[in-house]
């Protein structure tokens, strides 16, 4: 009698790499289907384009937050930074179109400076970034109130606002393509290229194991500080788009830091650093926005937003923690 040797083959599931973008793509696809069932119009080019344009600021903030988180830190200051930027821009421009470009440059410089300070305090003074950026958050909130005597002053010029509210009209097939979407696409490509560069790979390595990185010649403090600067720059761009789209208020950036962190976690990026893709973080933000749109279509109260965000953060971190502990 012949014996048939049977070897149990290792179960060959399509390997979902931890930190990869497959899970978030799957979630996004499910949401798109759900939206398509409930509100087919939403997926038609005009509304889709405008949705993407509206989502550009939070997606950019998620990318900025990604750099910080993947390097092993946090940036809680971006929400209040956005508010500060919008309020500052309104007061400095005060309706004068000639001041548009100087103020845009100033905002970028301001964002970079806040990131630099966050980074240096965290890395050189060894204050945990959670505390550093929480402190920066409070400082910015207070400073803006103080500087504007409690109510936003001045106003944005139409030139400034066009980045956030205007679009290329009559584009074939797509129809109306918001400027914000163009900005998003350009910066998203830049972010992906950056993460493939030496800097990007080093950034993730620093988040994975700063000791090893340091002993391999990486200046860990510089790398992390640069991540904070990128987050500050992302906040500046987000502020320009948001100011244009929704105008000037003390609430312009409220809660955006948590939105960004939720998006990053949802996108499969490990808190504590060392794992995850910037594309995942940006898709996470898009998914979050789509989820809110869906909630809206189903008549769920907008007041539940933060509850949903909180639940997502807890769930995503719990899932990734249980996966990493089983290795």
């Amino acid at each position: 009698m012949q014996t048939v040797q049977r070897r149990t083959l290792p179960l060959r599931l399509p390997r979902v790499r931890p930190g990869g973008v497959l899970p978030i793509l799957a979630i996004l696809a499910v949401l798109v289907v759900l939206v398509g069932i409930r509100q087919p119009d939403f997926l038609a080019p005009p509304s889709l384009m405008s949705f993407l344009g509206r989502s550009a600021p939070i997606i950019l903030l998620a990318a900025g937050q990604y750099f910080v988180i993947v390097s092993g830190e946090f940036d809680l200051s971006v929400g209040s930074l956005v508010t500060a930027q919008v309020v500052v821009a309104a007061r400095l421009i005060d309706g004068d179109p000639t001041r548009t470009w100087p103020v845009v440059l100033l905002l970028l410089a301001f964002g970079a400076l806040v990131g630099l300070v966050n980074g240096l305090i965290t890395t050189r003074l060894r204050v945990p970034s959670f505390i550093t950026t929480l402190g920066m958050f409070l400082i910015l909130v207070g400073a803006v109130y103080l500087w504007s005597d409690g109510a936003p002053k001045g106003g944005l010029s139409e030139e400034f606002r066009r980045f956030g509210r205007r679009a290329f009209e009559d584009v074939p097939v797509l129809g109306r393509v918001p400027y914000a979407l163009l900005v998003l696409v350009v910066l998203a490509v830049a972010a992906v290229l950056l993460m493939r560069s030496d800097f990007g790979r080093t950034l993730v390595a620093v988040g994975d194991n700063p000791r090893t990185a340091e002993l391999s010649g990486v200046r860990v403090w510089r790398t992390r500080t640069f991540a904070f600067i990128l987050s500050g720059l992302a906040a500046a761009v987000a502020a320009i788009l948001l100011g244009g789209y929704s105008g000037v208020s003390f609430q312009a950036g409220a809660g955006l830091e948590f939105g960004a962190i939720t998006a990053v976690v949802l996108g499969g990026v490990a808190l504590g650093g060392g794992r995850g893709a910037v594309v995942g973080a940006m898709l996470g933000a898009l998914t979050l926005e789509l989820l809110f749109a869906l909630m809206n279509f189903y008549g769920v109260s907008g007041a539940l937003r933060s509850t949903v965000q909180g639940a997502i953060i807890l769930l995503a971190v719990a899932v990734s923690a249980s996966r990493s502990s089983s290795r």
Partner: protein
Amino acid sequence: MSDPPPAPLLTLRGIGKSFLGVRVLDGVDLEVAPGEVHAVVGENGAGKSTLMKIVSGGYAPDGGTVEFAGASRTFRGPRDAQRAGIGIIHQEFNLLPERTVAENVYLGHEPVRRGLVDRRAMLDRTTRLLASIGETTLPADARVGQLGVAQQQVVEIAKALALDARLLIMDEPTAALADHEVELLYGLVRRLQERGIGLLYVSHRLAEVFDLSGRITVLKDGRRVTTVDTTDTTADELVRHMVGRELSSYYPDRAAPEDRGPVRLNLRDAGNQKLRDVNLQLRAGEVLGIGGLQGSGRSALARAIFGVSPFTTGDVTLDDRPVRLRSPRTAMRAGIAYVTEDRKGEGIVARQSVLDNALLASRAVFAVRSGRTARTARVRELLAAVEVRGAGDDQEIRFLSGGNQQKVVLARWLALDPRILLFDEPTRGIDVGAKSAIHDLVRRLAREGAAVLMISSDLPELLGMSDRIVVMRDGRVAGELPAGATEEEVVALAVGTAREAAQ
């Protein structure tokens, strides 16, 4: 001592333990009588720590029996062993610095009155407990963080006694103590003995072992070599028991005298917090072995050269030019590479790919100089040359075996064309095949003109690979031995029985 031995307090029979298929302990027998100080000695990796963890409930043995106070025991964890009456004083203390002595001593079992902690009773009891071991100057309400190391040790002991420990394990208790504090510890140990407490005393320092213990058990490679009455043996005999193994494995040929080049690295009276007056020359083409016990300054030496904790005194010259190696970056730019001892904690970035791991250093330090594509191609070649097996370059490194991880780390450094290589335990935790591959590679690098400094606790490896051996002790160079030295000579220098001979 010919008194009839009292009934043993602790009896270990045939204790065995393996980790991931590596046999760490094999059939170890050991007995401790009440009031006895039983010393356990052996080289690094002989199995002492594992054995102590088994006695104190940290690990469960794979085989054998633990009998304590007349009953067979299976401890489910350290707390279980504590409750049974076995206390352990680790090298690293386990105290809350912001709490008082009394609060630490009674942590977790505070005396309670009407549902609240009875602070006065706690202070009184602590004071009495301290007095009973002869410690009358230590206030029970002092904050532990303000105490010196020796006093903290007393608190640790009191903590064990508060749990009615009948057996105390002391793991290198003098490692952190100054000379005059050691005397105090001796007194303490004697008083514990008088109370009938059995002590298991683990130490590298043979002088103490002879001062304190009644019996000595020697472990080697996870086996018990012998147990002797302290009065019947000598330091030399112990050292012979601790080593003395067949040099069976194969090592590549050593450097011929003509292969040795000029002095690359020269340390003159170099020192820092952990090192004093180190004089050392490292030549191109040679493998200089560094021996010594853990904490003797071996790793501190490599870390000082590499600029991790730089030298603060003395002179360092590199190819006859004075240099200051302030950071890993400056050391790397000077052509120095450092393969760390703690591969997981300091050697790899676990969740990144093999390729990213191998590129880490070149990206960080020479990113501008070398073209991206050329650099990647070179690293891929190196990865192939060191024969990393079982993985593509894009696989996360944590899925590789220890040996293959180490080869990737090597490739990372070779990509920088270093002229001085510092290896700290290059083959620890690595399977035999990869081990000899790394030995060959180290020798090949030396033959091609690199200066190699290799730290190893593995004596056969140290003896088999080195062209010269420098042995460290207490942060100093204890002596130098030529190729062909014996294990006994190395250990004698390392533990200090050959102090006179070396000077």
